[in-house]
């Protein structure tokens, strides 16, 4: 039951699974909003205090730091799950970024073509992922962390262009 780090990887594996078992495989997407539990709130408080006590990093002086999350804010996630009951395969990907939704639904659409046994689109299964989705979302290839991704990491990732690099934007 693997979670994939990138949505492209999830898409590729899901496409393969769908090719093998197009009739039984289903894709479940779950959008969930959760209020944090009391223990989670206190954890977040502690984390914020800890971060506040540290001096601000000088490397990120050019852009303002991302707005800190309030401890009581609900957590929203979007999880994609490709499941085939016959073989028991389950492929998952989870994100918390609104920017990715458009692209993910786009890949759901392309996987839908596999399900419908329609021919693949020409630019399918390649680096031209973002264009194929037909959505203007800038590509955010890697998910460094679920929470509090610094703005600069995203910027770097965008400039580097799509691909399989995984460690590039990481700090």
């Amino acid at each position: 039951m693997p979670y994939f780090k990138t949505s492209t990887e999830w898409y590729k594996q899901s496409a393969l699974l769908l090719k093998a078992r197009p009739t039984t495989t289903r894709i479940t997407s779950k959008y969930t909003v959760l209020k944090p539990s009391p223990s989670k709130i206190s954890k977040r408080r502690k984390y914020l205090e800890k971060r506040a006590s540290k001096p601000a990093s000088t490397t990120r002086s050019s852009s303002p730091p991302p707005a800190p999350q309030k401890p009581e804010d609900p957590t929203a996630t979007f999880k994609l799950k490709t499941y085939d009951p016959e073989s028991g395969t389950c492929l998952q990907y989870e994100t918390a970024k609104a920017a990715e939704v458009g692209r993910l639904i786009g890949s759901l659409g392309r996987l839908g073509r596999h399900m419908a046994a329609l021919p693949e689109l020409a630019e399918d299964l390649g680096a031209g992922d973002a264009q194929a989705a037909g959505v203007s979302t800038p590509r955010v290839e890697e998910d460094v962390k679920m929470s509090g991704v610094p703005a600069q990491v995203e910027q770097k990732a965008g400039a580097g262009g799509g691909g399989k690099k995984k460690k590039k934007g990481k700090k």
Partner: protein
Amino acid sequence: MAGDHLSNDEFFAQLANLFEHNRKKGHSSVYLVQKRLSFDSSAAPPTPTKVADDPLWDTHPENPLPILIRASNNKSDKRPGTDREDIVKIKLSTVVQPDDLDAFYLRYAEACRAGMSGLKKRDKKKGKKDKKKKKKGVGEIKG
């Protein structure tokens, strides 16, 4: 089980409602499922007939098959001590014909982007705007 499938238009209207519910409540989920519709209730024989000597019978059907899309929320029961209330499970489903697939997914993406408002927005934009403002301000002073 939910009875009949909705038409695509109706489905989108109901889906928007479902997301709206979720937003109002501020603590719930929306489930979306897609799968191949391999069982056709209207026609007499099921669409791809299983052939015993071909284990990969379903990988190459003669005709493109429709896709079933389901959407639901999560049922919840009242629980003392919390602000949880009874919520009925809402189930929606629609069938997308292969020809409408692309158009459907464009609308679907839009509906989902509009509905999933709780996810994190990009905070990059703010910084950029600020920078521009600053630059502009400097320019004005100079000029």
